[in-house]
Each structure stands twice: as C-alpha cells, then as structure tokens.
C-alpha cells in the first residue's frame, strides 16, 4: 500500500493529516515532525500542495544514502532504519519532490505509507493505493492504533 495525493484541489489546508502523522510517530503535538507537509504555492489565496513521498520504484534517496539507513522497498518507497541515519541530508538533496526533512535529532523524517494521514483527511485529498508486491513493512503501526 502507498499514499497517493489523488485529489489535490480538494485540500482545505486544515493540517489534520500533519497533526496525525506527528502524533503517531513522535507522540507529541507538532507540525514539524510530520512526513507529509501541506504547503501553499504562494500564500493562502493560492492552491495547496501536499508534499509527501511518491514511493519511487527506484528511490534516489536510498541510492545516495551512505549508511544504508534508507533501503529500497519492494514495490516502491523506502524502509528507514533510524539508528543508521547520520543526518547527512544527502537524501534531502536527492528527493526532487522535497518529501524528506530532518527532525530535531537530525534524523530523517520519511513517510512509511501507513495511511494514518488519510484517516484524518476530511476531503479525500489522499488515498491509499494497493501496489502489487509491495511490502507493507509498517502496516503494524497502522491507523488502527489510534482509531
């Protein structure tokens, strides 16, 4: 399974997805620790843009990672091994969509495609797509935990 920004124009900019992501993985209230980022393309009067991992089949972030903290995942996207991350930021530069940023401990914040953000999207901007052969490595930390 992977997240797909299916209906971008429906976004109302409520940040509920970001709150959910940060709450689930960092156990705190914040926006900065979210793997998905809702941006504007020129202020609130312009369209919103959801920036989130595209689950590349050949992820450049994994290719440039010098410590194998990011490993290519079967079917698309990456598996992140936090303990190996040195905060070198090469993945940030490699990701054209800008889907990776660092947390306060200089560890990469990378989307796991768990779908927690989707369960808090009031407008169906985001969808879960089934990908044949993709390992749902993080499915155990699914939306059910907070539902």
């Amino acid at each position, binding site marked *: 399974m992977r997240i797909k920004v299916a209906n971008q124009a429906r976004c109302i900019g409520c940040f509920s997805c970001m709150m959910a992501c940060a709450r689930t993985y960092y156990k*705190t209230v914040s926006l900065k620790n979210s793997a998905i980022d809702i941006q504007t393309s020129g202020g609130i009067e312009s369209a919103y843009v959801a920036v989130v991992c595209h689950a590349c089949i050949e992820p450049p972030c994994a290719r440039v990672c010098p410590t194998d903290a990011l490993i290519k995942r079967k079917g698309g996207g990456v598996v992140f091994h936090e303990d190996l991350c040195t905060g070198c930021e090469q993945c940030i530069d490699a990701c054209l969509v800008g889907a990776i940023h660092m947390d306060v401990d200089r560890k990469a914040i990378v989307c796991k495609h768990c779908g927690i953000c989707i369960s808090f999207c009031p407008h169906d901007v985001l969808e879960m797509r089934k990908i044949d052969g993709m390992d749902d490595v993080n499915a155990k930390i699914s939306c059910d935990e907070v539902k």
Partner: protein
Amino acid sequence: MSNTNSSIGLANVLYIDLTNETSKVVERQDLIDTYLGGTGVATMLMHEEFKEGTDALAPESPIVFSIGPLSGIFPCCTKVVAMFRSPLTGEFGESHAGGRLAMAMRFAGCSSVVITGRAKRPVYITIHNNEIAFKDASSIWGLSSTTDIGKILRNVEPNIGKRSIIRIGSAGENGVRYASVNVDTYRHFGRLGLGAVFGSKNLKAIEISGDGEIEVPDINVYSKIYKEIFTNIVETDLMEKYHNLGTTENILPLNELSGLPTRNLQQTFFEYAETISGENFADNYLVRKISCANCPIGCIHIAMLKTSFGHSHEYEVRHISYDYELVYALGTNLGVLTPEGVLELIDRCEQYGVDIISVGVVLGWATEMSMQKKFTNEETKGVSLKWGDVKNYLLAIDLIIESPNEFYSALAKGVVFASKKYGGEDFAIHAGGLEIPGYHTGVGNLIGLSVGVRHSHLDNGGYSIDQKAFKGDLSDEDIVDTLIFEDDIRGALTSITICLFARGIYTYGTIIEALAAVGIERSEEELVKLGKDIFMKKYELKRKFGFSLDDVTFPSRFFETASTNGMIDEARVQNMLSMYKKKRWGAGGE
C-alpha cells in the same frame, strides 16, 4: 500540562514595546491557572496594562492577543482573542480571529502577546520561535492592498514552520476608526477598530511562526479524544451548516422571518434576497472552501468574481471570501441586488482593511441622508448615494478611507459620530456605539447587543433566542435568563478559544475531557463560574472606559421597523434591561 513536561512555553506572555523596540517573555502560569487563556487571560492582562484615561490611539494604549489551552492541540480551537480600547466606541474593544494565527502563536511558544508604545517609523514585527525582530515597513506603508502586503512579507521572510501574517491596510494607516486587521488574507480582527490602533502605533504587520513541539501527559488518551472530536466534526451533520453553504445559509430564512435588515433597516426583508442568497452564491460563485489551521470544517467560503475589461475577452479574476454578515452589510442593507455587486464592495473593503459591517451601516445611514438631500455636493465631493448603486458606493468607500475633507473624516469615525454631526441619529443603527450586525429579530437581539461586552451578536446570540421565541413561548424573563446563560458560557468557550461555530461539538463533557488531556482539571460548575467571573471582570474594564448600561440609548428606527417578532416596544426593552441589570448585579445595579 505543567512546565515540566512541555517542551515549549504554554504560559508565556510576550511583551513588546514598540517605542524602544524591545521585548521580553514572562511566564504567567498564574493567569493560565485561573483564567485558562483567550478572553479570560486577555481581560486580566488588559486590567494590568491599561492605565485609566489612556486614549485608544495613544502610544501607551495596549493591544493584547491571547490563545487558549487547547489552541493548536485540538480541532476547531482556532481563535485568537484581541483586546484593546476601541477607537470607534472609546470603550471596550475585543475581536476574535481565526486563520493560522492561533497555531502560529502556539508553536512559536507564546500564549499571549502584549504590545504597547509607538514605533518611530512604520515597522513590522517578526516572531520566529523566541526571536523577535523589528523591521522597517516604510516601503509597504501606503500600499493599497492588504493581499499584497501578505505576498510581499511571505517572500522576504524565511519560512520556519507554518506562519501567520496579520496586517493592516490603508484604513488602519489613516486611522479609520473601524479599520480591521487582516489575518492570513481571509480572516480578520474585524470589529471595533483594532486596525486603527495598529496604525496609531506605526505597526503595519506581524509575522509569526514557530516549530515547537508539545508533550501531552498521555499521548494515547490525547489521540483517542482527538479522534472522537474529529470524527464528530466530519462524520456527523453537526457542522454541516458551516461547511455547506456557510453562514449565508441564513439569508433566506431570516428574510422569510422578516429579520434581515434591509436599506438601513427601513424594512426587514429584501425583495431580491434570492439572488444574493447563500444558495445562489454557492451554486454559481463559490469556487473553494478553506479552513483555519487545525480545523477540518472548511467554512471559509471563497467566491470567484470574474469581470471583463477591454474588448477581446479580457478578464480579471478575483477570489473573495464572503459570509452572512458581509452579504447583509453590503447587500441587503444597501439594496445591492447582485452577487457581483456585493463581491465588488467586499473586495474593496478587504483591500483597504476595514470592518465591513461598519462600512455597510455607515453607508446605509449616508444613503438615507443623501436621498433626503442633507449633504452638500461639496461635502460629498459629488458622490450621491442611492440604494443599490454599487459604483457610487465604491467611490464613497475610497473617499472614507482617504478622508480628504471634514465630511468623509466624520464618516470614518463611525455612524454615531457622523449622525451627531450631520443629523439622522434616529436611523443611525448602532448598539453601544457599534454598527449593528445583520439581525432585527426582536428584543433578545436588541438587549443582547446592548448588554454584550463588545456589543456583538456573538456575545450572547440574542438573534438566535428571538428565533426560538418566534417558534415557541418564551417569557421576557426567559429571554433575559438565556442571554445571561449565553454570555457566561461563551466567556468560558472563548477563554479556551474554541471557535463558536464548533460550540455544538464542544459540550461541557467534551471540553472537560479535552482539558484533562492537556493536564487541566475543570468541572462544569467551575467552567460556568469562570464564564461569569470573566463577564464581571470585563464590565469592570468597561466602567474604566466610561461605559454604563444606564447610558444606553436606542435609535428610534429599531422601534419603527417590524422585527421577526413584530414591532418592538421600547418600554418593554427598558423593562427587560432593568431586569437584566437586577439579575446581574442585584438591586444596586451595575
């Protein structure tokens, strides 16, 4: 949530002195412990900061902004309370705004901001986490569009976290007494003239952002309650009204009930209500809905106004937010028949940064005066107003903002000032000196507006009590009791800075649970008492500003035009006012 387990300050007050361009942060857990936040904390800070006798536009006059204990943490706790002395009424000034400001303040780590002094030249303030800077705003002073101010600041300021940009337009710079402060383009501190207070301080804008992080006592409990509230908002029909048509949903029902002020309250129904109804706006003009940060409702309705210019299919397209009060003020109250006309007028006011309800009422009064030939051509600079004449209304708005002569300067001081000077006080429709919102529903509304601390329909929702009275039997005493009940509960809600649209979601039970999830224990009785205490503290402030309920007068227009509940009898209103005073303060009065 005590200091021990919170990673950013949840009780920090940021004091800013514009005269000396200095700032300091003081932790005020004492205030939060007693008054929670929002309107409660702001009231107490105002008590501390306001020195009796200070003019609204004097440098020493303070501005207070406060968020609440759930801001940025739970859905729909999106409001920021602003408090100041109103340059329009000279009296208690309080206005609430949504947008992203509450969340930006939360994650920047300041729960209140107090601003005093006057900068030596136009400045804007940036607050990034705990870094405060005063920057030259000379090059954006005088710019004719509040939207552009936002665009410019967005480009020159680095983006740390999600930010909010609040700014004034020409109206605030020029001291129009009902100038507003624009919040993130589509929201406002609209009423009572905060924009003029900004202008008097040479304060053009504040940009605030932060990337803080908050630890709650138990993440599982917090997540569970968050999810319950969120689900209640998006999966029940409790918020449908606000999400679907928005507040303009009220145009047709209030028109049907004869409660919709029309042509300066000469009547309470509008023959063309259908064409400027929420339904027509939604079907044919609505292009987008957006939300405040951390609110999944999406109640901000954006219409597209497409106008042609030139001969070769040239179009300009503007996106303009609209809601009920705006359609009343610049639509029915001015007899404007078309959505295009209403949107044109809204947009003009938005760009200048001026309170649209006040503009609509001032222009409504001026139209009646103008049609009775009470003004000279020299005074009006040739702009003769008549109902529905959008072109001349646009010119009049330009002239009010510019204030090139004594006449337009008077209009820029509000309908009370202008009618004292030029006459027509009987149809200067205000309550407590504030131009009225879009309701003429009966005694509940009239008394609610008079006794409400900020003379706003949101103080106690009198218009809604009248609609209940219309449907069923409510005695005068019932109405007074309900007003008191609403005054108090809304004091509690706005201390927690819950958006009043979400009051159906945040029952006492939910509030208590949500507060507990951030480590604050409160019972229903305590919350009710808090609301009442805050009301009383605000009346203490009002007295400092020179207000007394005994001085309240009503323009006779209120008693000459039938309301939803028929003609209103002035003697009955006076009786109910006495009853209100007695119930509030006992036999001795205020």
